[in-house]
């Protein structure tokens, strides 16, 4: 459809340079022979020439400095949070190992050196070492998942107080 009724709504986009080559070609061809569309296109050109000249907004004085201060504050807070998370993770790992060694000692005393599970003596040094290592790593993985969730939750912003 290339008639007047189809072309007229395309005039603002044509004037804004927002049509592809084929559409633009159809509009240009129609405008050459249609006085009404030619006038309307001239009218649109006035709009498009004036739009970039709208009075601009200026950022208020002090906004940049205030924003910069908040960014630095956020940066410090996130660095401190990362440090405390690292400390917490380390403490959890050490705690895991202490529990593991304590449990091993307790099991050896209570079971008198023999704790048979599926034919293996779990109270023997190497077996307990393997079981406890797996437990410590699982604890650490769970702790890391909890911390990751906390970090994600902190990304939700509070409204700025200014």
């Amino acid at each position, binding site marked *: 459809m290339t008639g007047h009724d189809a072309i007229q709504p395309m005039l603002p986009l044509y004037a804004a340079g927002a049509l592809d080559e084929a559409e633009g070609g159809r509009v240009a061809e129609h405008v050459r022979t249609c006085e009404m569309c030619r006038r309307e296109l001239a009218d649109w050109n006035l709009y498009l020439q004036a739009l970039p000249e709208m009075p601009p907004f200026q950022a208020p004085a002090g906004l940049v400095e205030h924003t910069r201060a908040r960014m630095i504050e956020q940066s410090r807070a996130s660095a401190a949070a990362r440090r405390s998370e690292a400390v917490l993770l380390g403490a959890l790992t050490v705690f895991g190992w202490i529990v593991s060694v304590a449990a091993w000692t307790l099991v050896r005393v209570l079971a008198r050196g023999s704790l048979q599970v599926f034919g293996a003596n779990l109270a023997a040094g190497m077996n307990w070492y393997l079981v406890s290592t797996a437990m410590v790593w699982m604890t650490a993985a769970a702790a890391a998942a909890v911390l990751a969730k906390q970090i994600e939750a902190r990304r939700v912003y509070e409204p700025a107080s*200014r």
Partner: protein
Amino acid sequence: MMLAVAVDPDAYSNADDPVSRLRRGDAEALTAVLSQYQHRLYGFLMRLLQDPAAADDLFQQTWLQVMQKIGQYRAGARFDTWLFSVAHNLAIDYLRRERNRSLDEADESGETPAVRLRSSDPGPLEELLESERAAILAEGVRELPPMHREVLSLRFEEDMKLEEIAEVAAVPLSTVKSRLQRALLGLRDAVERRSQRGKRP
């Protein structure tokens, strides 16, 4: 002073522009980038939100997010497009909280733009001085729905290509074209309404 920014510092060590330096956590670059984009970003937010307090708040939130997310910014891509997309997302969230209607619809004060036959009379802009036209248009833009104000600001004030606007607004190119068309038609309606009101005795 170094900022704690979660990025790989080696990946951009060759580039020396403020944005690349910001990615490396350089606090001096922060001042440079903020100053460079302050008026453009603030102007965009003001045009979109029309509320100085909200523009102020979202300006700050945009930069806080920029610092958190700058690791996601692809070096080589246009920084302003990425910056405006961060601001756009925050503005959309804000407007959705504030408005009960679609962001593509006019406020109650506005009327639905329509394609209609034009008379052969000159349009209201022709009767104005060149200096008056831009001010009248700015008033007309205020009556448009937010997404139409946004597309006009990005196209004509920011001089972005339609593809870049689509990237900022995270919509298909066809949606950008349709918004631009409806925005321009709505703007002309708004200007003509104002002109008619001005002529009434």
